[in-house]
Structures are given as structure tokens and as C-alpha cells.
């Protein structure tokens, strides 16, 4: 290859990789620095409603001086006010419960999908993916009509004589759980299915030939082999559920405090941008833990497979 073509080629490569790199750097990564700065700022009744912790005019010398007297007031405020601590604890509890429920509900369905005749498997996968393409908001909103006191579920329960008066399901944590399980089910089904589908059926046959009853073969062969899929599903579900806003807002009523909603309220209703940013920073820190743990496990698995 001539030198000129080589230079052209590397220029082209720079453009191909550089364009998305620059875009994501500016619009995804850099904003986190601004969130961090905002979380250290003071609230003010101006427009925009904050007094910056650092500003360009001060220059590096001024920044250094300020670093010593930085206000962690917003973070201290998060700790002082039990409301925020509660919101974090509740979010983790609700997201963890939903994740466990999703494994329990998703596993039998994904298992059946993987065992279905090869001919109809693509159709089943398509059916599992399709709800993902329909609006999240719409699918959550549909549950309002089902769960509300004068809604479909209560009417059905009363018609069957199971309850005498409508149950209060909407605006409770149960409704939030239902909403989360419902909206995240496709995210759990797909990794589970992928892990189960590529399993070698002869392994089960071998276990059974050696005298293992079906449940034992399932428990000792199928389940351990599908664990990476379970893990991937949990990861895909737990983290977004942790910061979920739409589900607790539409189904949880004012009682269920989840952190995504607290952030939203602080930002839109109380116009406390610095506090909302502090909430975001803490949420990010909580998320980093599971992400790193997952990456670590994935790396180990890939190395073991090699």
C-alpha cells in the first residue's frame, strides 16, 4: 500500500471512530462533571436556580482556593433528612424484590420458549420482544385502568365473590411491583432464553441415563449452565428499576418514595437543582457497584471459557 493511501485510510478511521466518540464525550460523559459541580453548588432563587461552585472567571487558582471550602451541604442534607435515605432504601428494596420476582416468573417462560419446536421459536422470541417496542409509558398507564378501585381487577374479584369491597391496589407498593415486573419482563426473558436455548440437550440425556430424575437433572445441569443468563437478566433489570420514575409515579401514589421520583420532584416541583444533582450523584455511586461486579464476573467467565 502506498503512503498516501495509508494516510487517507487512517484519516478515515479517525473520522469513523472520532465522530461518535466526540459526540458521546460531549453529550454523555461531560455532563456528569456538570452534575457533580451542580451537586456542590448552593441553591439560589435566581434563573437558573443555583450559584455555581466553580465558574470560568475564577480560573484554576480560584478553583484551587475554593476546593478547600467546598460545600458538601447538599450531601449532608441528604443524610440529615430521613426522607432521602428512605427513598434510597425503598428503591433498593423494591428493585431487588422485582428482580427476584422476574427471575421466578421469567425462568419458566424462557425455559418453555427454549424447549418449543425450533419452527415456532422465532415467533415466540418476536412475541417477547414486541412489548419492548411499544411505549413504556402506555404499558404502565394501561395498568391504572386494571388496578384502580373501580377498575377491571376489582370488578372481576367482586364478581367472583372473592372480595366484598374493592381492594386498594393502585397507589401501593404492590402496584409498583406489578408495574416493574410487567414492564421489565422482556429484558429478563431474552437473556434467559439465550442462555437456555444454546444448551446442549444431550447433557440432560446423559444425566438421566446416569439415573438422575428429571428435576435433579434440571437442578444440577440446566440451572447452573443458565446462570450467566440469569445474571445478565438481573443486571439489565435491577439498575434501570432502581432509578425508575414512570412506574412509581403512575402506580405508586404519593406513598411510594423511589429515588428517581425524588430526583424528579426536587428538580421540577421544588426547583432545587443542586439537591437533585446530589441525589443523581449518590444514585450513580450505588449503580457503579453492581456494574463493576457484573463486569468482573463476565471477564472471569470469558477467561474460564477460553
Amino acid at each position: 500500500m502506498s503512503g498516501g493511501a495509508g494516510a487517507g485510510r487512517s484519516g478515515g478511521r479517525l473520522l469513523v471512530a472520532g465522530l461518535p466518540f466526540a459526540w458521546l464525550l460531549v453529550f454523555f460523559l461531560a455532563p456528569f462533571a456538570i452534575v457533580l459541580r451542580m451537586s456542590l453548588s448552593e441553591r439560589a432563587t435566581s434563573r437558573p436556580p443555583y450559584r455555581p461552585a466553580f465558574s470560568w472567571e475564577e480560573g484554576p487558582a480560584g478553583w484551587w482556593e475554593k476546593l478547600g471550602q467546598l460545600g458538601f451541604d447538599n450531601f449532608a442534607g441528604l443524610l440529615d433528612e430521613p426522607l432521602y435515605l428512605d427513598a434510597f432504601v425503598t428503591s433498593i428494596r423494591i428493585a431487588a424484590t422485582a428482580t427476584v420476582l422476574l427471575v421466578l416468573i421469567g425462568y419458566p417462560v424462557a425455559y418453555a420458549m427454549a424447549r418449543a419446536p425450533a419452527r415456532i421459536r422465532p415467533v415466540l422470541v418476536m412475541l417477547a420482544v414486541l412489548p419492548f417496542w411499544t411505549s413504556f409509558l402506555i404499558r404502565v398507564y394501561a395498568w391504572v385502568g386494571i388496578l384502580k378501585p373501580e377498575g377491571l381487577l376489582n370488578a372481576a374479584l367482586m364478581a367472583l365473590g372473592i372480595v366484598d369491597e374493592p381492594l386498594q391496589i393502585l397507589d401501593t407498593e404492590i402496584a409498583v411491583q406489578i408495574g416493574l415486573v410487567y414492564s421489565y419482563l422482556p429484558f429478563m426473558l431474552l437473556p434467559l432464553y439465550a442462555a437456555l436455548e444454546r444448551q446442549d440437550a444431550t447433557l440432560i440425556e446423559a444425566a438421566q441415563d446416569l439415573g438422575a430424575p428429571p428435576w435433579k437433572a434440571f437442578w444440577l445441569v440446566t440451572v447452573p449452565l443458565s446462570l450467566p443468563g440469569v445474571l445478565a437478566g438481573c443486571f439489565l433489570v435491577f439498575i434501570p428499576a432502581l432509578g425508575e420514575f414512570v412506574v412509581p409515579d403512575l402506580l405508586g401514589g404519593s406513598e411510594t418514595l423511589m429515588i428517581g421520583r425524588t430526583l424528579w420532584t426536587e428538580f421540577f416541583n421544588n426547583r432545587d437543582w443542586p439537591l437533585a444533582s446530589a441525589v443523581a450523584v449518590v444514585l450513580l455511586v450505588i449503580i457503579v457497584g453492581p456494574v463493576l461486579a457484573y463486569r468482573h464476573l463476565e471477564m472471569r467467565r470469558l477467561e474460564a471459557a477460553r
Partner: protein
Amino acid sequence: MNRGLSRFNVVSLTLGFAFLYLPIVLLVGWSFNASKLVTVWGGFSTRWYGELFRNQAMLDAAWVTLRVGLVSATVATVMGTLAAIALVRFGRFAGRMMLTGMVYAPLVMPEVITGLSLLLLFVALDLDRGFWTVTIAHITFTSCFVAVVVQSRLVTFDRSLEEAAMDLGATPLRTFLLVTLPLIAPAVAAGWMLAFTLSLDDLVIASFTSGPGATTLPMRIYSQARLGVSPEINAACTILIGLVTLGIIVASLVTKRAGMLGKG
């Protein structure tokens, strides 16, 4: 794994998919219900659709959403495809780890954080919030989805065709346009569709980054849904569901056709 379905398997499949689809089916049914109540069937009616189409605020929001969706999906498809090519084809390069991280992180990032951080960026840059800020925000998170879709196609792709073109003297750009792009076109189209529907659906990020005059359809639906179930919203949702379903059917037919042409 294919050893036939037990009764338990059939029951789990039926219950699982009933759970996934029943709420959507109910919503569509309610939108044609003459009665406002969800428990009473007042007869078939298209009354709510009529009211919806007389609701100017709703129509304006739909127009904004459509424009944001078309522009953001198109730019995101270019951006995401470039990122996928860089990740799959360029081997090791400086910043590869970082690009991988920046492509995958937005996929699981809670929307409230993405929304808040983008808004603060726009405020820091002193940009007027409106159509363009929502569009930029949507390009940012949807391009990552495009990148993942296109990447999965590129990984399974036969490189010898590209090598043959290069050996015959085609420049990398020509090779890409004449060989690579036609072969990955179905994935690129699927990426565009995904980006478009994600943009169409997004409430949280749009709420943070939008400004006066750029209220999107989900924002409008949300502000009415908070007040409870309304038949007009049911109608709006049904139209959206119909459009997305139609899009997916067309997309899968196109992919099938492309697949058959590829084989033929």
C-alpha cells in the same frame, strides 16, 4: 434444546404471554368503548378518536414528536453505525475501552440521570431549550442502541467479501459503500426503527431537555394520565401501538425479503 413441551411448559408460556399482552389488548379495547368506564362496555364507538383529532394541543405534540423522532433516529443511525464499525473493525485503538463504555453505559443508565445531566449541560452552554435540545438528547441515547444492533450484525459478517473488494483495488470508502453497507443494511434499518420508537416513547429525558413550544406526545399523554384514565388517551395510545406494530411488520418483511435475496 428441543424435546417437546410438557404441560407445565405450555401453561407457563400461555400465562407469561397473556400477562405481557392482556393490558395492551384491554387498552385498545377501551379506546373503542363508548362508555368512559373501564368495567362497562357501552358499545363500539370511535367517538374518542374524533375528540382526539379535535384536540389541537395533542396534534401539536404529535407533530413535535414525529419531527424529533425522524431527525434524531437518522442522525443516531449514522452515529451508531460508525461506532459499531469502530468497535468491531478497528481492532485495538486508543480510546476503544472508553468508547465501549460510553456505548454501553447509556443502555442501563437510569433515565432521570441522563435527562438531568443533559439539561445541566444545555444550561451551562446557554442553549435555548426546545426542539433541538430534545433532538440532541435523543440522538445521544438512541445511537447507543443502534450501535449494539449493528455491532451484532458486523460480528457475524463474512470479512472475505470486504477483503476481496480491497484486493481488487477498491478504497475503504468504496468497499464500505458497495459491499459492507448493503450487507448490513437490514441491521441498520432495524437500528433506525429502534431509535425512532425509543424517541417516540421517551418521557423522562424529553421532560428534562424540552422547553416551551416543544412538548412531545409522551409528555402530553403523561400529564393527562396523571389525572387518571381518559378514553382520549386510550385512543392516542392505540394509534401509537398500531403504528409501531405496522412498522415492525414492515421491517420484518423487508428483512425476510433481504434474507431471501441474499440466499438467491
